[in-house]
């Protein structure tokens, strides 16, 4: 039976810190993004060709989509770096996890007596640590940006309200819902991508020829949608948190 492990397996240690296969893949994603950035920066041409063209059209699409959510170009430009980075990071991670070799190339280890297969690479989002970290960044950044934009007291008034009992209760619920956002962001991304990996492994075990193709297409699509949802939801929560509610 295939060794499907919920937690990402450690491949080596950097001193006292374990490095998991998901972390290794994350480093590959970061290296790819940095490479792309340096290539773009070197030759920024007035009449773009090839790579720059693709990046520019993707950015235009992203800006247009963000405009439809924020209804304000200034806000879009302000949040674009953060939201778009989330999108690019997650989508590259998801798609890299589908490449042949990821999840299949690895080494055999002995764990408590029986032999376990440890893949060298694994989709980054299939590790709850990765998604939890991104979710924490998203939620904390939303709070910080809200405080910086709207002002500390006004932002606090959304959650803590002593004058009106009903609004006070609503405020408490909102505070709890911030933590629910943390859980929901991380588990949505983790669940989707990990379930996709398990699905591909199981299908590959049953019929390895031809049949995995539609499932691979599904996973490509799911990878895109989950990255999209993560970034759009971050943007929506940012927008909600920075609108000063005037009752």
């Amino acid at each position: 039976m295939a060794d499907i492990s919920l937690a990402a397996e450690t491949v080596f240690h950097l001193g006292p810190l374990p490095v998991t296969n998901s972390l290794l893949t994350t480093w590959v994603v970061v290296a790819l993004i940095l490479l792309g950035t340096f290539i773009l920066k070197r030759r920024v041409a007035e009449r773009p060709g090839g790579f720059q063209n693709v990046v520019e059209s993707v950015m235009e699409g992203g800006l247009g989509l963000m405009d439809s959510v924020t209804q304000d170009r200034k806000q879009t430009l302000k949040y674009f770096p953060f939201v778009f980075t989330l999108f690019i990071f997650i989508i590259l991670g998801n798609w890299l996890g589908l490449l042949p070799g990821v999840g299949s190339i690895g080494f055999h280890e002995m764990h408590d007596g029986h032999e376990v297969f440890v893949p060298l690479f694994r989709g980054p989002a299939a590790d709850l640590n990765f998604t939890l970290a991104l979710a924490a960044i998203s939620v904390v950044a939303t709070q910080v940006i809200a405080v910086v934009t709207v002002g500390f007291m006004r932002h606090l008034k959304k959650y803590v309200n002593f004058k009106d009992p009903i609004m006070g209760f609503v405020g408490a619920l909102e505070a709890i819902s911030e933590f629910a956002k943390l859980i929901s962001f991380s588990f949505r991304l983790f669940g989707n991508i990990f379930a996709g990996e398990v699905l591909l492994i199981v299908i590959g075990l049953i019929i390895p020829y031809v049949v995995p193709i539609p499932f691979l297409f599904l996973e490509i699509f799911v990878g895109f949608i989950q990255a999209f949802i993560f970034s759009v939801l971050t943007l929506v929560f940012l927008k909600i948190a920075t609108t000063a509610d005037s009752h």
Partner: protein
Amino acid sequence: MDVDSAKVFAAAIAIGVGGLGPGLGIGILAAKAMEAIGRNPEAAGKVQVPMLIAMAFAEAIAIYALVVALIIKFI
């Protein structure tokens, strides 16, 4: 029934029942969105993005059920 067989059942029931609500929810969402687009085809672009966002929330519940099933199965 010993613990291991109970675990197998628990995992299956967790995701099976857990998929009902979100499935219905997403179906209703999509139906309303289709209605809206049918009534006003020009608003298709404006309806799409909020529909996707709402579907993400509904799907998240199914994902919670899936994660519980996975935890039961693998831990």
